[in-house]
């Protein structure tokens, strides 16, 4: 920058209020949409929003929903999601969303209002120690106490949110800082002083990994949300690598779509409600390549029985994810896309031949497991099976060929969605994996729809979860967002009921969804369309009607009340101790107290 322009920009900057500096910094960081809710402490920002057109503000009905909407926006676009809430209750309401984004590694910048600097610590009206409360709820947070720090902090927040392992960042903004004049400066071109995550993998580790993979007799690729976070190119590289090697590939819940569900080398999702073939392949493999997954307890089952005979390669951008739960043989620190590119190159360059006959035998074994058809169900009689409802929803959306994005709430319906809805591309699947936040799906779908106005955005929900953020139907109406809420209504908090049935002697303590609203009338009262389907014969027509309607819809699908989600690895059990269906429920009786303490 020349001396002349530097002076000019400084002079221009000093005419801006702190609020204007914040908006300018957001714009310079590529923000087009901000999800928020006003309040006293952030009025200066709302005033500045009123006077500009570059950034669109979406008014949610609850601050938690603002964060989930930003998560949906971020996850479906690869951009940083942006949130604006007021001090005190605005900030505390956002905390659930922040922790959700932290556990699922979603890049979010959340601006929170704060009482003026001279009142901090005085128990002022709507004061909360936001940086204190959100410290363990965020990747990083800031309290801006000096106007000259403002622009730098906003730029840094975006850098921190999206680099390395992405996550939520909070910027707490006292009201005087927003009102006072503040200088603007562009994002620094120099490296961050202390935070410089490693993205390029170490060549020696890649070489060790290739040596193991080339010699593998029973390999498996286990890919997670890190591949999605690394961008669509990483998913393409994953596909190339899996095709090149001929290995089977499984995805975690967060990784669905990273590898196409249509591909014959895809063995389905793994973990507690994963497929038989994926879990047994994990259990029996001799070389495991984990890319961008974190050996979560939902995936590993009992740790000391997890994949006992395998050499493990773990590529992760976060070194603290490596050797956290499961000791690995070849750790690789790096971005999933770069690791995959390096693996592909090294695989080609390596002269060692693969053990093809062993791989063929391994596939024969996997196909045998596949033959069990662990996701089979029988749709018969006059009651809709929840699995069937998801399967038909998937088949009909595919047949229509529209760009489709799916979000979910949390519980049985979430697992059925993961099992029966196929994803061919990354960024099409939004779910609360790590935190398991009921109420995530509707606001997330809202954020997705804002980013993709012409796409079909469906929240696969349960009747209990949907009520946790049902107020967002108002946001759908205000912005004419044609989100479809597809409720699998079994009149139970189904996953709680399932665990009570299997582990707590069928004592259904507080898990019945009593006094449910009439979802059709509820939809109508929010200016949306309501549909109720109770007969399997009407299911397809109901789904088609929901999709065809140009505005928001709640489709309330009455499904079997006592259906359980299978297959299932009971808590404290190993991958090879899966329960395939109701006929094996007795197998759960063996769950020890040690197993029961696990969530």
């Amino acid at each position, binding site marked *: 920058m020349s001396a002349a322009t530097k002076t000019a920009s400084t002079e221009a900057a000093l005419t801006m209020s702190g609020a204007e500096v914040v908006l300018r910094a957001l714009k310079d960081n590529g923000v087009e949409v901000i999800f928020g809710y006003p309040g006293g402490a952030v009025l200066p920002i709302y005033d500045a929003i009123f006077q500009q057109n570059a950034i669109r503000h979406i008014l949610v009905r609850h601050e938690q929903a603002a964060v989930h909407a930003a998560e949906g926006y971020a996850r479906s676009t690869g951009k940083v999601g942006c949130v604006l809430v007021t001090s005190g209750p605005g900030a505390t309401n956002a905390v659930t969303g922040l922790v959700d984004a932290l556990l699922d590694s979603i890049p979010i910048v959340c601006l929170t209002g704060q009482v003026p600097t001279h009142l901090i610590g005085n128990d002022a009206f709507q004061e909360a120690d936001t*940086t204190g409360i959100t*410290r363990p709820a965020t990747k990083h947070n800031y309290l801006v*106490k000096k106007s000259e720090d403002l622009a730098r902090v906003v730029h840094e927040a975006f850098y921190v949110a999206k680099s390395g392992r992405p996550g939520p960042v909070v910027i707490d903004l006292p009201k005087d800082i927003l009102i006072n004049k503040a200088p603007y400066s562009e994002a620094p071109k120099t490296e961050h002083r202390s935070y410089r995550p490693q993205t390029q993998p170490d060549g020696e580790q890649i070489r060790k990994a290739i040596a193991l993979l080339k010699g593998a007799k029973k390999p498996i690729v286990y890919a997670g949300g890190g591949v999605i976070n690394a961008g669509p190119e990483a998913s393409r590289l994953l596909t190339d690598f899996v095709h090149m090697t001929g290995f089977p590939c499984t995805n975690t819940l967060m990784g669905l779509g990273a590898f196409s569900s249509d591909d014959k080398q895809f063995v389905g999702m793994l973990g507690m409600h994963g497929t038989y073939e994926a879990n047994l392949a994990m259990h029996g493999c001799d070389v495991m390549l984990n890319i961008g997954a974190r050996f979560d307890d939902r995936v590993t089952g009992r740790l000391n029985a997890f994949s006992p005979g395998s050499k493990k390669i773990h590529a992760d951008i976060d070194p603290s994810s490596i050797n956290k739960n499961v000791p690995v043989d070849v750790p690789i620190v790096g971005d999933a896309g770069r690791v995959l590119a390096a693996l592909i190159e090294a695989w080609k360059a390596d002269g060692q031949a693969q053990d093809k006959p062993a791989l063929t035998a391994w596939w024969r074994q996997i196909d045998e497991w596949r033959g069990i058809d662990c996701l089979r169900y029988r749709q018969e009689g006059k009651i809709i099976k929840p699995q069937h409802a998801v399967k038909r929803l998937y088949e009909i959306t595919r047949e229509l060929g529209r760009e489709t994005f799916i979000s979910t709430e949390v519980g049985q319906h979430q697992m059925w969605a993961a099992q029966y809805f196929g994803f061919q591309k990354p960024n099409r699947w939004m779910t609360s994996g790590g935190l398991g936040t009921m109420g995530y799906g509707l606001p997330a779908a809202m954020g997705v729809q804002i980013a993709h106005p012409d796409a079909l955005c469906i929240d696969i929900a349960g009747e209990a979860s949907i009520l946790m953020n049902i107020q967002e139907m108002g946001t759908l109406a205000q912005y004419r967002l044609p989100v479809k809420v597809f409720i699998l209504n079994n009149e139970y908090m189904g996953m709680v009921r399932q665990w009570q049935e299997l582990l707590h002697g069928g004592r259904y303590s507080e898990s019945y969804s009593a006094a449910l609203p009439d979802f059709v009338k509820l939809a109508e009262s929010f200016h949306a369309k309501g549909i109720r389907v109770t007969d399997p014969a009407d299911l397809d027509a109901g789904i088609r009607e929901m999709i065809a309607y140009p505005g928001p819809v709640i489709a309330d699908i009455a499904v079997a009340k006592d259906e359980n989600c299978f297959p299932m690895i009971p808590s404290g059990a190993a991958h090879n101790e899966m329960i395939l269906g109701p006929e094996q429920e007795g197998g759960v009786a063996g769950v020890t107290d040690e197993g029961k303490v696990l969530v």
Partner: protein
Amino acid sequence: MSEAENAQRAATIAVLVENEAGVLARVIGLFSGRGYNIDSLTVAPVDETGRISRITVVTSGTEMVIEQIKAQLDRLVPVHKVSDLTLEGPHLTRELALIKVVGKGEHRMEALRLADAFRARVVDATIESFVFEMTGNADKIDAFCALMRPIGLAEVSRTGAVAIARGPRGIN
């Protein structure tokens, strides 16, 4: 898990951090939130501008836990450098203690004799009390305090360990 994997070890970890508001809370919150032990923790600015602080934390755990602690510390945004002094070679550990002993007559003489043997300095004296200043490793201070207890140990203030690698090798 094998016995070797379950074996606990102590670790003295030096952490260079950006000297900004909340950084100590981040480090301490990490230990409490993830259930790690803190045996002692010290912090002070160490560079000429006062922008960098050095935290010395003494902790213990299995090898896997200590590796986790270091990785978790290292990914905090304001952390520049994490160094496991225990693992990286010979290092010096020192702690400063101020020890107040109250007593009269023969007890005073005994306290002075022992202080001399332990190279503790008298930094305050009244006709019925001494404050000793002592530098050393934790064991030495523990031993001195134990000897003072029957004589009239009244109060102890300790800094916790600070540590640095021997030789020309630095962690910056």
